[in-house]
């Protein structure tokens, strides 16, 4: 995105803007200021970004629904950052200061998606002050979400194709991420999302690709893995990971800055660290976040005393979906095949080992034929009522006449029995 000239950022296109609904409102109704010919006098009391106060300027009869939820939406609260910070560091005034300097700039107002580029990327009106119902993708969404999501989706990482939804269908972000995802649904802090992977999986691939849902089509891969692997495990390709981000305030300029040690391309399948009813997958692609135990050292010592409380290889949904990938070409790629695509312990730094115990893949999936998988005995429907979800509790020793699992099954442990032994209908 090319930077805009200062005049370009504030040029109003009367022909386009004035006939719109918002163009019927006098400038000063929202922006305050003074009717004067001189710039300085006219800008006395100016409110450059009225939607910083959505209740005052955007609600009322027009956008009350969005205004009720947006203060509790992730783009507004940035709760995703706080959730990670609090897990590792608890509550600390130095972290608040750090957040204010380095993270708070990502807070987004209504106007920063619908009328101008976000301040964080330089600002500037999109279309002469016309309010865009659909934010322009590259000037709004990927202007902020650029280095990972944007580059992956648009195919800007050298040698790696862009997402099929963009390449083939020219879909933009809002085709999947609808208004509700952006504006939020909670109307109070208690029910607000704690991060983007909390609660309902939305958007969800199978909402459009119904046939790919478990038991949705005859594709044996979907039948076998539909509820044990996230779609991205089979359908995404190499994506960006980062290492060692440190933040500080410049002694020369007084401006906050950051430094990352490395950025590189990875594709690694790990265990799902946030397995839930909504995201039941046993395995997901994992991306390395650049957090380190001393990332915020500038602001104080040992600010992340619980560094190991959250993995540094995190649940990820790479935005570079392909129909055919190296890993979905055959069963053997994963089953007794390519260890390089799994997050095994040897790929984790010693100082991050403890933090990632919930993600590290201890053993590779053993060789299985498709027939074996599809013909595996089903789990009786009555097992749904079992209080324990530990299959091996009974099936290792044959307690209560349970069939004893074969010796070669020891590799599976409890985590993915249901991958082959589907629940009887």
């Amino acid at each position, binding site marked *: 995105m090319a930077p805009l*000239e*200062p*005049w370009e950022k*504030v*040029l*109003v*296109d*009367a022909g386009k803007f*004035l006939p719109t609904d918002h*163009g*019927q*409102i*006098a*400038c*000063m*109704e929202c*922006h305050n*200021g003074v*009717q*004067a*010919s001189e*710039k300085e006098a*006219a800008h006395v009391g100016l409110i450059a970004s009225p939607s910083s106060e959505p209740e005052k300027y955007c609600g009322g*009869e027009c956008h009350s629904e969005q205004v009720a939820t947006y203060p509790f939406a992730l783009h507004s609260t940035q709760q995703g950052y706080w959730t990670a910070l609090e897990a590792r560091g608890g509550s600390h005034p130095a972290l608040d200061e750090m957040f204010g300097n380095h993270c708070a700039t990502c807070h987004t107002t209504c106007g920063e998606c619908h009328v101008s580029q976000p301040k964080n990327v330089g600002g500037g009106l999109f279309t002469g002050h016309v309010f865009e119902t659909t934010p322009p993708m590259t000037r709004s969404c990927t202007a902020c979400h650029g*280095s990972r999501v944007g580059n992956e989706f648009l195919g800007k990482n050298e040698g790696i194709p862009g997402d099929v939804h963009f390449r083939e269908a020219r879909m933009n972000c809002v085709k999947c991420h609808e208004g509700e995802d952006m504006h939020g649904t909670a109307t109070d802090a208690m029910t607000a999302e704690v991060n983007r992977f909390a609660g309902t999986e939305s958007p969800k691939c199978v909402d459009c690709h119904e046939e790919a849902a478990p038991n949705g089509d005859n594709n044996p891969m979907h039948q076998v893995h539909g509820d044990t692997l996230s779609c991205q495990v089979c359908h995404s390709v190499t994506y*960006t990971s*980062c290492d060692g*981000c440190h933040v500080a305030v*410049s002694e020369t*300029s007084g*401006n906050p*800055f*950051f*430094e*990352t*040690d*490395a*950025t590189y391309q990875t594709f690694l399948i790990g265990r799902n660290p946030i397995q839930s009813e909504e995201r039941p997958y046993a395995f997901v692609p994992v991306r390395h976040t650049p957090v380190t135990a001393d990332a915020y050292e500038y602001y104080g010592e040992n600010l992340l005393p619980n560094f190991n409380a959250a993995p540094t290889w995190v649940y990820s949904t790479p935005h570079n979906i392909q129909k055919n990938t190296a890993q979905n070409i055959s069963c053997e790629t994963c089953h007794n095949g390519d260890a390089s695509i799994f997050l095994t312990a040897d790929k984790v730094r010693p100082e991050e080992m403890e933090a990632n115990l919930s993600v590290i893949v201890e053993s590779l999936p053993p060789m299985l034929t498709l027939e074996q998988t599809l013909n595996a005995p089903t789990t009786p429907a009555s097992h749904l009522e079992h209080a324990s979800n530990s299959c091996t509790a009974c099936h290792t020793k044959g307690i209560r006449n349970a069939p004893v699992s074969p010796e070669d099954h020891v590799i599976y442990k409890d985590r993915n029995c249901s991958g082959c032994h589907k629940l009887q209908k």
Partner: protein
Amino acid sequence: MKLKPIGLLIAGACLIAACATVKVESPTGTEPPLATEAVLASTPEADKCLACHTDKQRLIDTAKPVELAEAESKGVG
């Protein structure tokens, strides 16, 4: 014959009166009426904010010179 112009006058007056009572329905019945000053202000001629912000040359002339700060961050954000 003298009554003819008077008749025309009366007919004209009736027509004007009829036009004056025509009620114009708002295309969106529930839309609240716009404030008079808002309508009046929303033209570059009447509003000094718009007069400046629709004038490219004036914006160029009055823009604050950009101070290019050296990027201090390193790596991908």
